[in-house]
């Protein structure tokens, strides 16, 4: 990859711009709520974009490209079996509780629905997960530096961490929502030409299908009857239950960075519609993120450059360097760098908040002056970045970012989803049961991981192991919670109003014209999704 003056110029303009917006906004607005309050004239599709861009980052662009270079078109399932149904479910069934319960965070919902210890357990596991995830952004940024400046990996990681610290100090967080929406467009404009040029390079869809390593790479559903027939090494049951149900619903329904965007909407119906609107463009993301990975593994100019043993994370940077001329290269790199930085900064802030308020202030050292906690927050920021550098070296052991990310989700999100489902739809579920269930779920994931890691259980791919680990964690949490509920006393019914499905009046939006009702929108979105599944069968 070779950068020229114009590429540096484009990157520099972005940095100047972000710092500029940060200064301009300072004093005017500080939170995401201000952003949405100020934006009454802003149409609903922007809220939808913010919902989506909370999760679309370079992590998704680079990780999904790596994922599809390794496993082929089966990765479409992450969208057309996982994300889209989960987003519809959030919009129709879960948003009413989040929005109606006045909870402002996921741990807070758990405190209201269950008790303090369940919240603390969730806060702790969230803090650990955030630190482990933040290594991904640093790793990905370091890979870019490595390719651009030819530095060794260690130096690149430290440089990446330094850039993130500067970004946070300069107030990159004050304007975070602006950056996220801006980034979304930068990534779309920066990477759409890559998919189109890549497709042209391999001779269209027909040429792509011919040059993929084997037919298993070119189909979404055709080879899922038996695990041995497809590169992912999973059959339909593992896909539907492990990925489609546990991992995807677990992520979209309990990940607060995502849900929060919907909460900022101006009323319940807008909040419900947010994920549904976001689901429409999301459906076409495979074009943006999966196609480049497929091209990288099929195109003769790149397919032998993954190294030995292959590191699939190079799929996207490699293709970028091969196909983009100066100018466009600057745009693509700006999109990547921008989203790594804000992704990392977002993780650091999330860790900082949970550590300082949910753990430190609540349990370790309560009752101190505000300035004490502010200082603690600053220390936590520095500590989080430092730990992030260390976790970047863990990521180095994975040849596909998504293998690592889904591994983390199978530990933390999968059991949490069972706790949520039971809490929201079964009013009998008790607090002790939720705590015991969640803890056993996490521990069972750990047990499964050790058995897999030391070779006592065997799967056809690391991703297959993640799917089954998620199923184990979810099922253990579910069963333990149900069993313990049988032996413990439930909460009083009046405490559960607005928190549990059967205790909350359901608004069917009969007053709205039919095409504006969330359920109708959700069904149309799902219909479109089924069509895509059939086209790319």
């Amino acid at each position, binding site marked *: 990859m070779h950068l020229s003056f114009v590429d540096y110029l484009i990157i520099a303009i972005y940095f100047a711009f972000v710092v500029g917006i940060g200064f301009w906004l300072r004093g005017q607005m500080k939170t995401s709520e201000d952003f949405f309050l*100020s934006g009454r*004239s802003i149409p609903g599709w922007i809220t939808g974009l913010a919902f989506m861009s909370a999760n679309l980052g370079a992590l998704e662009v680079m990780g999904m490209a790596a994922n599809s270079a390794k496993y082929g078109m089966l990765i479409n399932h992450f969208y057309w079996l996982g994300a889209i149904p989960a987003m519809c479910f959030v919009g129709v069934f879960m948003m009413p509780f989040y929005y109606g319960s006045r909870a402002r965070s996921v741990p807070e919902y758990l405190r209201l629905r269950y008790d303090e210890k369940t919240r603390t357990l969730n806060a702790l596991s969230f803090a650990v997960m955030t630190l482990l995830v933040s290594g991904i952004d640093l790793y990905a940024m370091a890979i870019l530096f490595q390719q651009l400046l030819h530095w060794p990996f260690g130096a690149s990681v430290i440089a990446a961490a330094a850039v993130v610290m500067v970004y946070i100090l300069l107030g990159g967080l004050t304007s975070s929502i602006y950056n996220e929406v801006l980034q979304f*467009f930068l990534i779309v*404009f920066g990477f759409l030409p890559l998919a189109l040029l890549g497709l042209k390079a391999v001779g269209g869809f027909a040429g792509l299908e011919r040059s993929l390593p084997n037919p298993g790479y070119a189909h979404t559903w055709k080879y899922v009857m038996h695990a041995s027939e497809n590169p992912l090494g999973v059959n339909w049951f593992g896909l539907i239950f492990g990925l489609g149900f546990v991992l995807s619903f677990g992520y979209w329904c309990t990940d607060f960075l995502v849900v929060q965007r919907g909460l900022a909407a101006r009323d319940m119906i807008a909040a419900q519609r947010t994920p549904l609107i976001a689901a429409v463009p999301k459906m076409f993301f495979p074009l943006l993120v999966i196609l480049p990975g497929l091209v990288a593994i099929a195109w003769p100019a790149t397919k032998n450059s993954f190294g030995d043993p292959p590191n699939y994370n190079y799929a996207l940077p490699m293709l970028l360097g091969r196909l*983009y001329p100066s*100018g466009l290269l600057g745009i693509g790199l700006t999109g990547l760098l921008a989203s790594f930085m804000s992704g990392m900064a977002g993780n650091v802030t999330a860790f900082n908040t949970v550590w300082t308020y949910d753990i430190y202030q609540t349990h370790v050292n309560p009752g101190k002056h505000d300035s004490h906690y502010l200082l603690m927050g600053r220390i936590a920021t520095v500590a989080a970045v430092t730990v992030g550098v260390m976790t970047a070296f863990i990521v180095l052991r994975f040849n596909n970012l998504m293998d690592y990310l889904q591994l983390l989700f199978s530990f933390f999100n999968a059991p949490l989803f069972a706790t949520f489902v039971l809490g929201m739809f079964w009013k009998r579920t008790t607090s002790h049961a939720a705590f015991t269930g969640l803890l056993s779920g996490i521990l069972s994931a750990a047990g499964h991981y050790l058995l897999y890691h030391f070779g006592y259980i065997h799967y056809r791919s690391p991703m297959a192991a993640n799917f089954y680990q998620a199923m184990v964690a979810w099922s253990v949490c579910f069963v333990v919670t149900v069993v313990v509920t049988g032996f413990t006393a439930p909460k009083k019914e009046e405490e559960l109003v607005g928190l549990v499905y059967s205790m909350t009046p359901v608004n069917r939006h009969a007053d709205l014209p039919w095409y504006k009702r969330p359920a109708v929108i959700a069904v149309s979105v799902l219909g479109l999704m089924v069509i895509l599944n059939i086209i790319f069968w």
Partner: protein
Amino acid sequence: MGGLDIRWPIGFIFTLYGVILLIFGATANPEMFESSLGMNIDVWWGAGMLAFGLLMGIFAMRASRENRT
């Protein structure tokens, strides 16, 4: 009502990037576009980004006028 309509910054930066790509692509040595399969993608994509940026700016302007009146 404080705050900034998100369409302003989007419109501004895409207009700027579009112009840069257009000028750079139009004046660059055609050999540079061998990597992009012989297509002068900078000019084409620059024009697209410019159009998108201007459109966002126009929307933002219309919205701010409506708010004022």
